[in-house]
């Protein structure tokens, strides 16, 4: 049992909270955290109460420090702490504050708790309760770290999805002519998406020619070439001819060395030449305006 810890927590809870929040509003003197944003006060307050409830519950029970017993208590504590910690981490990320600040806030609370504990104890503080409190905060720090990383991972994967969507536009260049500028990496997932978008647009606009521009594709290897070929085949089945443009001179040399043939696909060095070709196929041309009669 750790009665002293439990007592401290019960009697000085409000005082501790006020002290904690007040100190967090300024940058710490030892530089372990910079001041908490005012919007953070509510999430911190909530976290504090959940944490106190957990500590109190744990302290009032028989606490086992045996490490070979990954206690039910710990798991309960983690589950209970997850929502407020998650909120804290998310707020910090939104405010573009660092994870070390977040950890700094939490570890500062540990510091305050220890101080209160030592001040309240008449006799020497039970070693077990010190170890236990330390262990608790270790768990919390680890959990915070994991939550922050998970949050970042989620953010990155959301971003890459939006980049993917942004980077596959199918443009209507002219009546029955589409332009598909490809930029960036073309892997299997993206190739499928590109093909989907293109086929949809071909059907919608009854396109007779599609210009696929590869200027923005950094490297054309066999797998990229294969994806493009499949896209071309599918476009053809819908009755659209394909004009490839923007293969760089070194790209062309590399493709021939690899032994890749684009067969009877029309290819032009520049987008300009490709557009001229597309217009030709649809029986149009760009001409200078007639000199106005004066």
């Amino acid at each position, binding site marked *: 049992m750790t009665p002293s810890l439990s007592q401290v927590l019960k009697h000085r809870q409000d005082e501790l909270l006020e002290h904690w929040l007040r100190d967090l509003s300024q940058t710490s003197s030892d530089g372990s955290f910079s001041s908490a944003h005012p919007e953070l006060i509510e999430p911190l307050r909530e976290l504090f109460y959940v944490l106190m409830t957990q500590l109190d519950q744990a302290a009032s029970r028989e606490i086992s420090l045996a490490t070979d017993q990954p206690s039910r208590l710990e798991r309960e504590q983690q589950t209970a702490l997850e929502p407020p910690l998650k909120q804290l981490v998310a707020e910090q990320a939104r405010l573009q504050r660092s994870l070390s600040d977040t950890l700094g806030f939490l570890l500062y609370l540990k510091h305050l708790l220890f101080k209160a504990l030592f001040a309240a104890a008449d006799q020497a503080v039970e070693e077990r309760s010190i170890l236990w409190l330390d262990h608790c905060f270790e768990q919390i720090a680890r959990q915070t770290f994991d939550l922050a990383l998970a949050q970042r991972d989620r953010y990155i994967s959301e971003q890459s999805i939006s980049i993917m969507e942004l980077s596959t536009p199918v443009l209507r260049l002219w009546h029955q002519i589409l332009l598909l500028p490809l930029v960036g*990496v073309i892997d*299997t997932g993206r190739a499928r998406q590109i093909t989907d978008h293109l086929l949809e647009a071909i059907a919608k606009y009854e396109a007779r020619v599609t210009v696929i521009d590869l200027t923005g594709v950094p490297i054309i290897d066999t797998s990229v070439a294969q994806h493009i070929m499949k896209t071309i085949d599918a476009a053809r089945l819908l009755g659209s001819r394909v004009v490839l443009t923007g293969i760089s001179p070194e790209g062309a040399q590399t493709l021939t060395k690899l032994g890749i043939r684009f067969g009877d696909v029309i290819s032009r060095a520049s987008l300009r030449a490709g557009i001229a070709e597309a217009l030709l196929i649809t029986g149009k041309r760009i001409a200078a305006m007639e000199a106005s009669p004066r």
Partner: protein
Amino acid sequence: MVDLPAPSEECGSRRFSIQTEADVMAVARGARQLAEHLGFSQVRAYHLATATSELATNLAVYAGGGMVQLHVIEDPAKANRIGVELRVEDQGPGIPDLALAMTEGFSTGARLGCGLPGASRLMDEFSIDTSAHQGTRIRAVKWRQPALLPTAPISTEAGSLAPTRTAP
């Protein structure tokens, strides 16, 4: 002749772990940057990057992941000749029939089948060591300058693409 940048420690060696297709681009980009940093011509840098991309894709698609390493090396036989050594290793199932895999247009996986033979053509040196269940190791080198053939002294980049062509 441009000054040869000394292969420095920090750019001398890079390791990439390839697990999925998404990892391929980073190593191809790394190879290209390294080659351009060393003063490779655009075409030769592109060759190296494409070969790296082919082999890394193989790791992701067939071998269930592996390791790609890029090293800057100097030709022991010739001073001032530098190149990029590409080492590709996996613990995958190995290539059952190497001769067949090196055949143009052969693929077990409904692909174009020019990855391995194509990559070997893009590099100046290429050796492969594979055994069933022991994985595959590939070592390949791209030199900064094309080999000068004594019978046909070719100095242009375009010439290097057809080393067997006789001098005009």
